[in-house]
C-alpha cells in the first residue's frame, strides 16, 4: 500500500482516534490518505494550534497526542509546541512534511531543516530515508514519546517517499538498544527513604507534574495519608493531591502559599516526587530549604541532583515506587505525634497568611473573584486550560483541583497562546467534561484564530478572558522591579475608553456567542448562565486593571522573604 496509507494503519494500531493538523504541498499525499482513513482529523487555523491541541489532548487523557504540519513554514510553526511539550514532558508525535529528497539541502521551495531546527527541543526525531521503515519508526516514535519521561518526537517525511508503495505489516516490538528507561526503583534506596521519612520531624512532600504524568496520584495520596505528611504541589502537579484537604498546603514557589514555602524553608526532610526543583520553585538556590535532606524520586535520572543534590535518589516510575515506599513506611510503625509540633507551626502560617485579596472598592470585578466564581459554578469539576500571565497564577491559586488532568497549562515554557488550542484537545479527549479556557487579553490574541476550529468542530469550550487591558504580568514586574516605568504593556490604547478589540464582536464573527461581564454583583449568575447554555461561549470579563499576583517570591530571593 502507499506509505501514507500505512501511516494511517499505524495510527489506528496505536489507538489514535483524533489528530490535529494543517495541510500543504509536502504533506498532500498524507492528507489524501486522511480521506479514507476513518481517523478524525481536526483542521486547526495555525500549526501552533495543532501542536498545542495535541498537547491538551495528551494532558487531559494521558494518551499520546498527534499533530501534522507541512514542510518549511508549517514545520517552523510547530517549533513552539514542540519545545513546549519538551519542557512539560508531554507525549506528542509530530509529523512534518519535507520536500522531495532530490531537493533536500538545496534551499528548495518550503524547505527547512526541520530535524536541525527541532533537535534541541525534542526527545527524539526521525528523518525518513527509506519509506519501508515508516511502520517501525512510527511505532518506536509512540513508544519513545509515551514511556519513561514522556516528550515530543518528530517524524520528518519527504514528500516523494510518502507516495512509495510499501509492504505493510503491523509492528509490535521495539528495537531501541539505547533507550531503556528505568522504572522499578532500587529497593534499598526505597527502604532508606522510608526510614528517613519515619525519623523526620519536619517533613514535606513536594510533588510535581511527574506524578500526574505517571498516573500516580492515588499512590501519592496513600503515602501522604499513611504518614500524615504535609504536602505541596508545583504548578504542574496541581490536582495530583486533592485540594482543599487538611494536609494540603497549597502550591509552592514564586506565587505559592506562604504555608507551603515556609514549610519548605524549615523542613528537615523534603521528599520530591516527579518534580525538578525549577528556579520558579527554589528561588535563590543557595538559600533554598537550607536545613533539609532530600529524597528525590524521578523517572529521569538526569533530573536527580541537577539543581539540588539528593541525599536519597530513587530512579523510577512513581506509580511503582510509591506503593512500595508506603508499605516500607507502614512497616516501621512511626509515631504520628512526632509531627504535632510541625503541624502546629504550619497551621499558624495557614491562619495568619491565607490566600486572599482585597475586594474592589468601586464595584469593579476582581480577577481573583472570577476564578472563585468559575470554581463555584463548575463545582470544581471542569478542566481548566490557562494561558500565561497573571490569570494563570490566579487560576492555580483560586481554583481547587480535586483530580489530576483537570489543570492544563504551559508551565515550563510559559507559552502565551497555549490555552485556547489546548482546550480544543482537552475537550476532544474528555468530551463529557466542561472545558474552560482562562486567558488574558494578551494571550488570547496569540492564537485567537482557533475560535474557528472550535466553531467548525462545534466544541462547547467556554473561553473566559480576564480583560485588564494590560500584559498584566509584565506590568506587575515593571511596577515592582522597574520603578513603574511601564514600557509597552498597555494593550487597548486605541480609540479612547473602551477596550479593543471588541471581543464580543470578534466572537460573533466566528459564530460564537460572545458576552461581556462588567457587574461584580451578578458575576456568578452570569457565568452560570453562560456555562449552562449549549455550545461554545466567549466571555469578556472586564476586571480591575492594576491587580497584582500575591504572594510572591521576587526572583533571586529566598522563600522566607516572600512579599504581598
Amino acid at each position, binding site marked *: 500500500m502507499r506509505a501514507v496509507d500505512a501511516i494511517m494503519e499505524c495510527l489506528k494500531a496505536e489507538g489514535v482516534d483524533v489528530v490535529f493538523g494543517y495541510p500543504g504541498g509536502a504533506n498532500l499525499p498524507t492528507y489524501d490518505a486522511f480521506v479514507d482513513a476513518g481517523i478524525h482529523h481536526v483542521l486547526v487555523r495555525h500549526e501552533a494550534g495543532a501542536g498545542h491541541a495535541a498537547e491538551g489532548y495528551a494532558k487531559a487523557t494521558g494518551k499520546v497526542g498527534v499533530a501534522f504540519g507541512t514542510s518549511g513554514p508549517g514545520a517552523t510553526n510547530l517549533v513552539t509546541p514542540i519545545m513546549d511539550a519538551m519542557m512539560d514532558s508531554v507525549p506528542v508525535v509530530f509529523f512534518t512534511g519535507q520536500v522531495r529528497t532530490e531537493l533536500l539541502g538545496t534551499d528548495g521551495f518550503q524547505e527547512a531543516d526541520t530535524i536541525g531546527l527541532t533537535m*534541541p527541543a525534542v526527545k527524539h526525531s526521525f528523518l525518513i530515508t527509506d519509506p519501508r521503515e515508516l511502520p517501525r519508526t512510527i511505532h518506536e516514535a509512540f513508544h519513545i514519546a509515551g514511556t519513561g519521561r514522556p516528550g515530543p518526537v518528530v517524524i520528518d517525511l519527504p514528500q516523494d517517499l510518502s507516495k512509495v508503495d510499501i509492504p505493510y505489516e503491523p509492528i509490535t516490538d521495539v528495537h531501541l538498544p539505547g533507550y531503556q528507561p528505568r522504572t522499578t526503583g532500587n529497593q534499598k534506596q526505597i527502604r532508606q527513604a522510608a526510614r528517613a521519612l519515619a525519623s523526620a520531624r519536619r517533613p514535606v512532600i513536594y510533588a510535581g507534574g511527574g506524578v500526574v504524568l505517571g498516573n500516580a496520584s492515588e499512590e501519592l495520596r496513600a503515602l501522604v495519608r499513611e504518614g500524615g505528611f504535609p504536602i505541596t504541589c508545583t504548578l504542574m502537579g496541581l490536582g495530583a493531591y486533592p485540594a482543599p484537604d487538611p494536609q494540603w498546603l497549597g502550591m509552592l514557589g514564586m506565587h505559592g502559599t506562604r504555608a507551603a514555602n515556609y514549610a519548605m524553608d524549615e523542613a528537615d526532610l523534603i521528599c520530591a516526587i516527579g518534580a525538578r526543583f525549577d528556579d520558579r520553585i527554589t528561588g535563590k538556590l543557595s538559600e533554598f530549604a537550607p536545613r533539609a535532606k532530600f529524597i528525590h524520586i524521578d523517572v*529521569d535520572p*538526569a533530573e536527580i541532583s541537577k539543581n539540588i543534590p539528593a541525599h536519597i535518589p530513587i530512579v523510577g516510575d512513581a506509580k511503582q515506587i510509591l506503593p512500595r515506599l508506603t508499605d516500607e513506611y507502614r512497616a516501621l510503625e512511626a509515631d504520628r505525634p512526632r509531627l504535632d509540633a510541625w503541624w502546629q507551626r504550619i497551621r499558624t502560617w495557614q491562619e495568619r497568611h491565607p490566600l486572599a485579596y482585597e475586594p474592589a472598592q468601586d464595584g469593579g470585578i476582581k480577577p481573583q473573584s472570577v476564578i472563585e466564581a468559575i470554581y463555584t459554578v463548575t463545582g470544581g469539576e471542569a478542566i481548566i486550560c490557562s494561558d500565561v500571565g497573571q490569570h494563570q497564577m490566579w487560576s492555580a491559586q483560586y481554583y481547587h483541583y480535586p483530580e489530576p488532568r483537570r489543570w492544563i497549562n504551559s508551565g515550563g515554557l510559559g507559552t502565551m497562546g497555549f490555552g485556547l488550542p489546548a482546550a480544543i484537545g482537552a475537550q476532544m479527549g474528555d468530551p463529557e467534561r466542561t472545558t474552560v479556557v482562562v486567558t488574558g487579553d494578551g494571550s488570547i490574541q496569540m492564537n485567537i484564530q482557533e475560535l474557528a476550529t472550535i466553531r467548525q468542530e462545534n466544541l462547547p469550550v467556554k473561553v473566559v478572558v480576564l480583560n485588564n487591558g494590560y500584559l498584566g504580568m509584565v506590568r506587575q514586574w515593571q511596577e515592582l*522591579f522597574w*520603578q513603574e516605568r511601564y514600557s509597552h504593556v498597555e494593550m487597548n490604547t486605541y480609540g479612547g475608553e473602551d477596550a479593543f478589540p471588541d471581543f464580543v464582536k470578534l466572537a460573533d464573527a466566528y459564530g460564537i456567542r460572545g458576552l461581556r461581564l462588567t457587574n461584580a454583583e451578578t458575576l456568578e449568575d452570569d457565568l452560570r448562565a453562560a456555562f449552562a447554555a449549549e455550545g461554545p461561549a466567549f466571555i469578556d470579563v472586564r476586571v480591575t486593571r492594576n491587580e497584582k499576583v500575591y504572594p510572591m517570591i*521576587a526572583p533571586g*530571593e529566598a522563600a522566607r522573604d516572600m512579599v504581598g
Partner: protein
Amino acid sequence: MVDTNELLSLDELEAAGNIRTGRKHVLSILVENKPGVLTRVSGLFTRRGFNIDTLSVGPTDDERVSRITLTLDGALHPIDQVVKQLHKLVNVLKIKDLEPTETVARELALFKVSVDGPTRSEIRELAEVFRGKVVDIGKRSIIVEITGERSKIEAFERLVRPYGLVEMIRTGEVAISRGRDET
C-alpha cells in the same frame, strides 16, 4: 527586594554560574552509527553550555556502532550532569567517564616546520627522540608525525615552535581503558 537595574559585575556572573574547571575528563561514548548522531551529541553540549576540548569519532569493530572520544574540562557535578543528559539521547548506547590512570589515551599530530639547511637535521633528530616519523621533506619545510600522549605532543610543539611552525594539526584524543573490561 532585588533591584533589576543594578548592573551585574562579571565576577558575580562567574560566581553564579557553572563556569568552573576541574580535572580533565575523557568520555568514551558508544553511539549508533546513524546520520545526525554526532550533531545530537555536540548539540547537547552547546545547549548545556559545555565546551568540548577535543572530539574524535570513528567506527568500531561493530559496523552498527561508532565510538566518540570526547575530552572536556569540568568540575565533577556538571560532568555527572553531562553524562546523564547524554544517556538520554536515544542513539547513545554506552558512556564511560574514563579514569585517567586506568586509561590509554593517544593523539596524533602533524607538524609542518620551516627549515633551512642545518635545521633540517635538527628537526629530524628531535623527531627521532620523540619516536616521530618524518613523512615529508620539502625544500623549505618538513612534516613530522607524532603519536602519543597529549603531554608528549605538547612538548614536541614547544621544542619545534622556535624553528618556525608553519602549520600543525592534532586529531584530538582517542582513549581506551586498560584491563579486560570493555570500555
